């Protein structure tokens, strides 16, 4: 089975590293980066299925701007927003810009996996559905 292409973007290094480790441990290979600019570069190179994007990244491009650019480059990529503060306006803006959904930090891994599964499922292809099911299976195990 083809692995899903997932990118996690978060400026908090500890968070990003740990999350990626945990996903890797669950056999979900992910790419990661810590800024909007870097994320755009990666998106240009790789057709990611899902991008997990932190909204608030101080300095440089923030999540919303990155989202806008990502959607321009790869409209088919599903974006799950992460937000540490519950500002509805930004989350709503994100949704309007085409984000799939948003999650409030701190997130439980199961929640993220569930969202990933949903996002993949939404893409509709058989391959994606299989990926989605695999992830769901993981959630149950946890």
């Amino acid at each position, binding site marked *: 089975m083809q692995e899903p292409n997932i990118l996690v973007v978060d400026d*908090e290094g*500890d*968070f990003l590293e*740990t*999350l990626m*480790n*945990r996903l890797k*441990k669950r056999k979900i290979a992910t790419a990661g980066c810590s800024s909007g600019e870097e994320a755009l570069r990666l998106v240009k190179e790789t057709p990611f299925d899902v991008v997990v994007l932190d909204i*608030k990244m101080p300095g440089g491009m923030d999540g919303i701007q990155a989202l806008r650019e990502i959607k321009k480059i790869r409209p088919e990529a599903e974006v799950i927003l992460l937000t*540490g*503060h*519950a*500002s*509805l306006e930004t989350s709503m803006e994100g949704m309007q810009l085409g984000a799939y959904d948003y999650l*409030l*930090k*701190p*997130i*439980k*891994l199961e929640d993220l996996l569930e969202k990933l599964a949903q996002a993949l499922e939404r893409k509709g292809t058989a391959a994606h559905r299989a990926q989605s099911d695999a992830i769901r299976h993981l959630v149950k195990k946890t």
Partner: protein
Amino acid sequence: MIRNIYSKLQWKIIVLTLLVTFTPLLLLGVIIYRQFADMYTEKIKEQIRFRAESRADAVDLFLTERTAILGVIADTDSLLAMNEEADLAHKLTIMNQRAGAFVDLGIIDQNGQQTAYVGPYNLKGKNYYEQPWFGQVMSKGVYISDVYLGFRQAPHFIIAVRRQEQQKNWILRATIDPDIFSRIVQLGHIGKTGDAFLVNREGLLQTKPRFTGNILEPGPVNPVHFGKQTMSFEQTGSDQRQTLFAGTWLKAKDWLLVISGDVEADMAELFATRNMQILIIGLGIIAIVATTVFTTRMMVNQLVQTGTRMKEMDAQLVQSDKLAALGKMAAGVAHEINNPLAVILQKTGWLQDLLEEEEFQKSANSEEFKNSVKKIEEHVERARKVVHNMLGYARRMEPRLEDVDVNQTINQTVDLLENFARGNNIDIQTDLAGNLPIIAGDQAQLQQVVLNLMNNAIDAIGKDGTISVKSTAGKSEIRLTIADSGPGIPESLQKKIFDPFFTTKSTGKGTGLGLWISYSIIEKMGGTLSLQSREGEGATFTITLPIVQPAKK
């Protein structure tokens, strides 16, 4: 304190208004009365003076007429004929028929001997040479005497004329009836209590006054005070009664004709007017005082009400401001806390992942590790909950506009809690208005508020009690009350009850955010959430929601 200020203000307004009103009113009243009284008094004095003058003229006419008659009779007959008493009696009769008031008639020779006499007294042969009037007649020719007693020992006065006949003088003398004369003088009186009388130069009464005093007694006025002109003045008698006198000297005799009037009687009309004026002013004052007090009270009450309303509004504004500021701060704090929490949660997750691996499973402390990590996770969850609660229970912070059925919301919530309440012997009573309109709002958030309030009510009661939930529809708002039979909320806590993190529950049990969130939710829906409570009498939370028509679909 505030009450006191308003009370002071009220009295200030009342005193000032009354002062400004009464001063000109009383001043005007006094001035008008004084003017009127002066005019009236002047009029009365003028009237009494006029009366005195006209009466004096009448009395003068009376005296001159009689003097003239005597003169004519004396001039037309000789002494010889005069001494015929039958003729003299006839003459007296004719004189009384023509003029009247003659009592007797006598002829006196130049030696003072009365040679003939007709009249009720036996005076023939009396000698008048020593009488003071005799000399006067002899020297002046015509004389009207003062009243005196004379031989008859009764007060009377005489008119006498002297006639010279063949170098001899004789006198025709007549006595005037003092009663008739008195009556003629008395005709000049005014009113019921007025009087009219004559006094001589010594102030002795010459006619009988209508009421007090007798002829030859000293009269009530001193003639020295009266000059040529008719004069009037007031005099206070021994009985403290004010009497007005007007006097005018007669022309025919040095007698003073006095008209007297009781000031009070004459001024009765004036006094009545004054009393009426006092009454009207008095009633006016009462009316003004009553109106002033009434309107001032009303005004001050209005002020008090406005003040209270403004204070309430201020308090609400302060509360809203406070909550808004706290909300902003909370959002900032939430972000700052959530990021480290996110890292901690991932790290503990990672630890758990690792602990699953075989090498750790073998470790003696494996269980201890697992437990510790689990505890960390639990407390991260607790912290997360606090932060999330702080920003609203739901992920959504802003209310979503949808159709809200308030009664349905209540019923759902009651269903949720009924079993638990029954377990604690708490009776939930609902009294829901059947005509509640569907409004635009956020049903989930409203349910959160109702749930929160009812949960609090159950917590407050503990065991055994009642919660009554009531909904009513007003013109522009829906009112929802949740009343519990719990211990009530002390007044000192009521102000803080909507503050975030304020809780009376034990640590860990309540976050102190429930009412704060409820307050903001209702506020965002355009309504109000308020508390009415008294210690020992339970607490009632009232929600009002504006009736906003849901959007048409």
